[in-house]
């Protein structure tokens, strides 16, 4: 008898079920648990109150990213509350025997940047973190999703989670991207099409020729924003690109173990006849650089477009929500996006803070200057990305153009560490959320790719990078 065809998701899901009662969620085993300072303190407190230990400290890794300053580390942390939270993670990881890439670690960085960098993230794994952008790790053919703090406690104590099986959603991206169009534009276009709740209850699997031709870092950019389309997880089948990225990394299997792992990993891709609950196809050739104009990531349009008119929307709730968004953003229907003045440009985050993102931005900045009146921050996703960029001289390109070159961290993506917009300021940002106040109370965010962000920085307004290439 042959097994019924299965998707990548189904293969991983079934392999990780520890127990499953009828009409109940599965007890799902977790291979890798990533921890950061913001969503873990209450979970460790819970363990202590129950007198529990961490079941598998060897499958748990912590870092500091959300609230750390991106100014030189020699300066003491001014925010007492942030300092206390960071100290608590240091104390908790010490007490429970968990590896910590802390303040002084050369491998510190945004949790979703260092997991892959260290080779911790591997195909076929279940990976969780108290952070919704855990979907990033799905780029390796892992089932990776964000959890709340109660669930962080569950995984610390039991290495398991109660999970209801999600449905599957095939996202096929076929064809070739044009010049100036990148992975970020693919994912912004998908979310604009299906809406920010469009993937609710589902796991995306991205496939098609355009996805296959992407590098691992580009694949991570796409999987990262799965949650912005409502899906807790997004995955891409592992292939030679994946294996090449992983080979030789610190925590990747070595020698004979590597060969055995490869054999398992090669069996993971969805079977040809596997069925998905939903699907959509996107033509890569037709995509343009994308920019959001509103206050959720689904409000995105090609950069050459005009601001949509809420009056054209028949659904009253959707119309009201767009009207509110335009008012918050200070935009009028029918205005061109190109030429909209900006105050700040932020290049960084777990979406676009990797070395290839910085290279793209630097390629546009080289020999140009950040426009007068614009502040540009470039924040590497990890200290390793920072070192690599400095080796390549990218920091010099940024500095000479007038941009600020920072230490690694989440920074202005979430504005917890003092890097933030002032009320009313407009920013083109390579991060993933343009919610009201996300980058600072009253701040206005236009999400875009590193190429579009850099082009806008040198232009002083929202710009089409294709005119600068």
């Amino acid at each position: 008898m042959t097994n019924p065809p299965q998707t990548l998701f189904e293969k991983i899901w079934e392999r990780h079920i520890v127990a499953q009662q009828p009409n109940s969620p599965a007890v799902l085993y977790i291979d890798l648990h990533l921890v950061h300072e913001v969503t873990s303190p209450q979970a460790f407190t819970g363990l202590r109150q129950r007198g529990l230990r961490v079941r598998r400290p060897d499958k748990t890794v912590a870092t500091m990213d959300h609230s750390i300053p991106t100014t030189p580390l020699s300066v003491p942390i001014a925010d007492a509350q942030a300092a206390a939270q960071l100290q608590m993670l240091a104390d908790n990881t010490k007490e429970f025997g968990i590896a910590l890439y802390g303040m002084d670690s050369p491998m510190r960085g945004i949790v979703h940047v260092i997991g892959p960098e260290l080779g911790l993230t591997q195909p076929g794994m279940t990976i969780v973190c108290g952070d919704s952008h855990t979907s990033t790790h799905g780029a390796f053919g892992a089932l990776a999703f964000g959890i709340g703090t109660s669930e962080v406690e569950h995984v610390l104590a039991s290495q398991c989670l109660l999970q209801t099986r999600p449905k599957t959603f095939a996202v096929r991206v076929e064809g070739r991207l044009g010049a100036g169009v990148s992975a970020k534009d693919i994912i912004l276009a998908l979310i604009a099409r299906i809406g920010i709740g469009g993937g609710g209850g589902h796991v995306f699997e991205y496939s098609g020729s355009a996805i296959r031709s992407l590098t691992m870092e580009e694949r991570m950019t796409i999987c990262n924003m799965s949650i912005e389309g409502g899906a807790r997880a997004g995955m891409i089948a592992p292939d030679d690109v994946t294996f090449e990225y992983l080979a030789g990394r610190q925590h990747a299997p070595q020698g004979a173990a590597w060969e055995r792992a490869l054999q398992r990993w090669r069996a993971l891709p969805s079977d040809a006849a596997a069925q998905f609950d939903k699907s959509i196809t996107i033509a890569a050739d037709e995509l343009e650089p994308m920019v959001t104009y509103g206050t959720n990531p689904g409000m995105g349009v090609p950069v050459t477009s005009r601001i949509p008119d809420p009056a054209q929307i028949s659904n009253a709730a959707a119309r009201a929500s767009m009207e509110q968004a335009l008012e918050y953003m200070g935009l009028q229907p029918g205005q061109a996006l190109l030429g909209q003045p900006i105050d700040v440009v932020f290049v960084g985050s777990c979406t676009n803070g990797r070395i290839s993102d910085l290279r793209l931005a630097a390629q546009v900045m080289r020999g140009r200057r950040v426009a007068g009146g614009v502040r540009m921050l470039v924040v590497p996703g990890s200290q390793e990305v920072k070192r690599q960029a400095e080796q390549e001289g990218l920091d010099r390109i940024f500095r000479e153009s007038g941009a600020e070159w920072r230490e690694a961290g989440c920074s202005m993506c979430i504005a917890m560490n003092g890097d933030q917009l002032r009320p009313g300021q407009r920013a083109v940002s390579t991060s993933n959320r343009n919610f009201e106040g996300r980058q600072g109370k009253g701040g206005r965010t236009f999400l875009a790719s590193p190429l579009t962000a850099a082009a806008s920085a040198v232009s002083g307004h929202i710009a089409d990078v294709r005119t600068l290439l």
Partner: protein
Amino acid sequence: MAQFTTLTSRVIPLLRTNIDTDQIIPARYLKVTDKAGLGDALFADWRYNADGSPNPDFVLNQPQHRGAQILLAGDNFGCGSSREHAPWALTAWGIRAVITTDVADIFRSNALKNGLLPIVVSGAAHAKLLEFVEELPQCELQIDLATQQMTLPDGSLVPFPIDDFSKTCLLQGVDQLGYILNYSERITAYEATLAG
């Protein structure tokens, strides 16, 4: 975990769609290391003026909604970040149920672990509820989890779905970690099968 059986309360209408967790509790309030006291941070950017005074136009600040425990919200409530601080802030303020036409996955999971009931109803049922709330802001809604029904002020019933497991957990206040730890032997057996 806090139990949820029945609830009778006035309803606060907050009808924006896609209310994300950054609105429910902005990130600058996430630097805490415990769960207590987050009620003051609930909807902070909408609730307070720039000088920190309460914004009288915001529903939570209106006297007729004081003490109400049910939120009637727009579609796709709780999208965005996985912060459990969102249900912590809602329950600390006093909210025990959120009625909407769709709720984001992670928020739903977090809410259920904090005795906060997410109720998803059809657009028509949502509109009917809203009509009542707008006409009779003082009217009370009854929620009965065991029968999965809401009783409107005119006596009409609106059913709502919830999966059996979540329902049992809420009704009995089941401790989910305790439930998982009952499988400790199975977990150990599973770990023995892991490839090295």
